């Protein structure tokens, strides 16, 4: 466990925060940390910025992220990592497809390799970390395209050589169902699952024997298509199978 200090806390929107901390860690785009709030839980968080200073960007879902958002400048910040693999180096035309907090994970790539960014959120108020020229989709149409980011992006998939995707599993599943492995582009997807250890030994994040924390978080579309469990069910904290509500694959 390392510790450093909070350098800055930026409120990105009503419930998304960017926490910058004082550390000389070296990480590659797409890697994540296990963040610890002493006395509270330890949770996985992507690095939204890799260095000088590094940062995480998170939505206040529940208790732990809420406590995190209440840290003050100078407060101690605890983490281990970085963990996980990273996005491959792209060439040609690049697209980024983000749903929800998935943009946090993609952000360090976007800052490094230019490309078209497609972002989806429920409403305008849920957006954050936006840059010039981003293609926006909102479920309620309050900004940009009305519908999901997949609805917006899918028709354009074959315009790109590299596509990097990060978002909720059902969203990614929707993209795969549309593309069905026939895209000419190389598609890489950063997955999210419940994570307890972050270092590949507890098995809580595994999908068909692939550990999201260690074999991933980033997988090629071909790998994800071989995961028969993907988009069908996930595991609860007990390891029990829980089906996604939008039905079986």
């Amino acid at each position: 466990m390392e510790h450093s200090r909070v350098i800055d806390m930026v409120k990105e929107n009503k419930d998304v925060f960017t926490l910058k901390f004082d550390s000389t860690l070296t990480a590659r785009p797409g890697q994540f940390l296990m963040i610890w709030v002493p006395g509270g839980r330890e949770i996985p968080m992507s690095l939204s910025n890799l260095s000088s200073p590094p940062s995480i960007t998170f939505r206040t879902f529940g208790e732990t992220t809420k406590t995190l958002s209440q840290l003050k400048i100078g407060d101690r910040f605890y983490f281990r990592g970085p963990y996980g693999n990273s996005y491959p180096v792209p060439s040609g035309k690049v697209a980024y497809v983000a749903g929800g907090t998935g943009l946090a994970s993609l952000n360090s790539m976007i800052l490094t390799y230019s490309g078209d960014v497609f972002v989806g959120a429920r409403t305008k108020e849920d957006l954050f970390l936006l840059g010039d020229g981003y293609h926006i989709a909102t479920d309620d149409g309050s900004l940009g395209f009305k519908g999901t980011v997949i609805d917006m992006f899918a028709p354009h998939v074959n315009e790109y050589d590299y596509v990097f995707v990060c978002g909720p599993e059902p969203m990614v599943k929707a993209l795969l169902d549309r593309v069905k492995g026939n895209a000419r582009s190389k598609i890489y997807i950063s997955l999210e699952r419940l994570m307890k250890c972050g270092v590949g030994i507890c098995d809580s994040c595994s999908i068909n024997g692939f550990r999201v924390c260690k074999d991933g978080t980033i997988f090629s579309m071909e790998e994800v298509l071989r995961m028969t469990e993907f988009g069908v069910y996930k595991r609860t904290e007990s390891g029990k199978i829980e089906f996604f509500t939008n039905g079986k694959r």
Partner: protein
Amino acid sequence: MASISTRIGNFTLENPVILASGILDETSGSILRSLKSGAGAAVTKSIGTEERRGYQTPVISEISTGLLNAVGLSNPGIDNFVEEYKGFPEKKRTIVSIFGGNTEEFVALAKRVEGAKFDKVELNLSCPHVRGVGSEVGQDLDMVEEIIAEIKGGTNLQVWAKLTPNVTDVVALAKAAEKADAYVLINTVRAIGVEIYSRKFALANIVGGYSGPGIKPVALRAVYDVYKETRKDIVGVGGITTWEDAIEFFLLGAKAVQVGTALLYEDYPIYSRINLGIANYLESEKFAKLGDIVGVMV
């Protein structure tokens, strides 16, 4: 090439390296991955009667000499377990680990395991129970004896008794467990980790189980003591990371070994690395088969 196959009771393993309970074995997909990566067999995460979420994170803490964990026996419960493993293709090479707070629970679980067409159970005798506050089921000699007798009497399962090292006298414990087909030695050592700046415990549960290289000398002692006294089949576990570590256990009487924490350092290639190392050692030291070195120092 020297043979590295081994036998625990009437169970023949192609090689002696087994995945330990609780590491990369919560999902059937990962069990298959270990078996495909060269494990001789695999033990499931310990399964109880009811679904348990386990402790909140942090559930592991890496230290310089190994790992502390307090996962808290998270498991989907026997019903969900049986459901998930319905069409599972590797039941012979999979040992189902079960835990309970009393004899009845253990026996009921064992019967469910047999009903699900597995033929081996490993008894995790290291969970807290009620009779003695703060003590473990596995520290209660009478209960250990009873659990094993009833499972042996009531099922046709091969029974592996996994013993706790957190006792004054592991040999007495082994004797209480002597109706088991094999001993598995050792489970984790009770321990604590501290973070000095937050002044909080490294694990949410405060006390955890210590595994990895730091407990190997303790595990070797347990295997030696128990083998010397009982000459029974032993599966050695605790800190095994290299093939040299495995050889140490064989020389003291283990017929097979389990690896857990080492997966953190070596990942899935560990099975073939250890197997190759054992075969090369047997070759170069001029032994025809693994059995020739089992217990030779005792």
